[in-house]
């Protein structure tokens, strides 16, 4: 589904990604872990197409298509979804209206008519129940005055609405208490199928107890320095990242 080869990316002449190789197939869950500043969030943003980052070498190929010249919104139309670490507040635009706009723009890109209002309402109701989101919450301005947990839950609600092929969860666990974490993870698990894939970016192993990865990759200094199964996450939790940094330096 996604093939990243020798990816180098920089922002303002500072190289952050230094040769990433990663292959994600349908039905898989990949976890990307690593210390602060290792390039995890940059990788997420580059896959989603943030223009601030310049890809200097390598490629990102999604379902056989090179994404280099593809705008962020077109990547979304192709099924890429990024759950933001810091979702942006949009005053005056309700969660519901925002979702209507996003869904109908995606439909338009695929040559479809707007989703009928009753169908939209049904979908919103169904997905908000999945994430135990209160109806009143949906008429609030997008992310405005939301708590950290509400923002993250709202991100996963958006993911549920848009049904992406590839979901990238960037530090979705940060700022969540244990109940919120369980709800969010539960939502992600229910959305998982053999046809879609998830990349979980996290600093801690905690979330991976709920969203169990097939593969764990450790990112350090812009490179994947170690890959393994889910047991690697436990090892990292126990030993920290220092031993890997040393290993990488050798």
């Amino acid at each position: 589904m996604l093939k990243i080869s020798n990816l180098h990316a920089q922002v303002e002449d500072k190289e952050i990604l230094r040769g990433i190789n990663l292959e994600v197939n349908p039905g898989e869950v990949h976890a990307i872990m690593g210390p602060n500043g290792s390039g995890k969030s940059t990788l997420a943003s580059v896959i989603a197409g943030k223009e601030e980052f310049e890809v200097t070498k390598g490629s990102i190929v999604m379902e056989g298509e090179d994404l280099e010249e593809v705008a962020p919104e077109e990547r979304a139309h192709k099924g890429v979804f990024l759950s933001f670490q810091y979702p942006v507040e949009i005053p005056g635009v309700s969660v519901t209206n925002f979702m209507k706009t996003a869904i109908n723009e995606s439909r338009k890109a695929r040559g479809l008519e707007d989703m009928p209002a009753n169908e939209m309402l049904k979908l919103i109701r169904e997905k908000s129940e999945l994430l135990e989101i209160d109806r009143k919450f949906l008429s609030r301005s997008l992310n405005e005055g939301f708590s950290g947990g509400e923002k993250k839950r709202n991100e996963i609600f958006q993911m549920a609405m848009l049904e992406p092929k590839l979901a990238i969860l960037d530090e979705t666990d940060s700022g969540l208490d244990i109940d919120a974490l369980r709800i969010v993870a539960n939502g992600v698990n229910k959305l998982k199928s053999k046809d879609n894939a998830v990349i979980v970016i996290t600093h801690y192993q905690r979330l991976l107890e709920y969203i169990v990865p097939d593969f764990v990759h450790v990112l350090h200094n812009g490179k994947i320095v170690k890959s393994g199964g889910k047991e690697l996450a436990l090892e990292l939790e126990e030993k920290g990242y220092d031993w890997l940094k040393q290993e990488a330096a050798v």
Partner: protein
Amino acid sequence: MDLKEKLISSFMAFESNVDVEHPVHDVRTEAMKNFELKGFPSKKEEAWKYTSLNNLQKVDFSIFPKEENTLEYKEVKRYFLHEIDTYKIVFIDGIYSSYLSETTHDGVDICLMSSALTKEMYKPVIDVYFNKVASKDESLTTLNTAFSREGAYIYIPKNKMPKKPVEIIHFATGNEASLMLQPRNLVIVEENAEVQIIERHQSLTTNEVLTNCVTEIFAAENAIVDYYKIQNDNTAASLIDNTYIDQKSKSVVKVHTFSFGGKLIRNNLNFYQNGEHIDSTMKGVTILGDKQHVDHHTLVHHIEPNCESHQDYKGIYGENSTGVFNGKIIVDKIAQKTNAFQQNNNILISDKATINTKPQLEIFADDVKCSHGCTIGQLDEDALFYLQSRGIPKKEAMALLMYAFANNVLASVRIQEVKARINKLIAKKLGVRLGFDL
């Protein structure tokens, strides 16, 4: 003959049509003298540095329309707040249209300035209020005073509130090749009384129109005034809008100015706080394109202690448009415990658009809270990326962000239909489908 000379000679013609024996005419004559002396303001004056009236002065404006014109309601319905019932004071080419208007004398007076300035029963009120807060010095205001004859007259006695909002609309039909209008409004809201007013100037053709309007508002103790100015005129219409507000203790006056259309707009909005615990609020949304020009000049004079003023102006400038925000706050020495807030945020969406923004604070008291902030920027890249990553194309995402940027000014709009109308105008002005009903 330039416009100034034409106005001076027209004044004589004007005098043959009004009662020169009435005391009001002494006020007019005085005002005319001031205008003769000063003429039109030029860019050499600090207050007019960024707004030039030179081109307008070259136009051969008709000062008085030659004939009375009529309009059918259905032709102009869309300019009214037709979703709800309102009182209406409507003028066509400067002349009152009884056919389109709905005035009242039922406990309140919502009627015509021409009656108030001539009929004996209004004389006591006119003596006390007419031209009492308007500047006797500023040349365009005095020009309006000199020709003051018609406009809206609103008198709300103690403890009263009209059953519905009041709409003041000036239509220009384009029957004249170019027309100059000088409406004069007087709004008096007595103790514990309340009124909501929506004002609009609308030209119906692309013939040139210049409106030099003066509105005087008097808010007595505990009075509440909500004033909405909808400026969405076509591109051959220019407006100089002078508003003077006198507030007494505990009164609350809010003026919202929505500037979306017109060729040149100059808003002079002046608040004078003559009492304590006064709240003065000025809010504005400006969205311009083409070669449009809008100049917001606000003044709040804190004369007494314990008062507040709030200013929040948001501007979005595209294409070759230009904007000015000049916010002057004066806090007198005795006006301790003043809270004065001023905010002016602007987004430039074109390399050729310009905004000049200037806070001007003159504070003579030492125990006050005054804050001001001006920003000029582009749209937030992170926010744009967030929306795009949800599948919203860049153009629509920009529109949504600009909508969000302008939207928070609307929170204080108390008439839902006005809010809905402005929301729609903002969306339309931004030129994209937002994917939902606003």
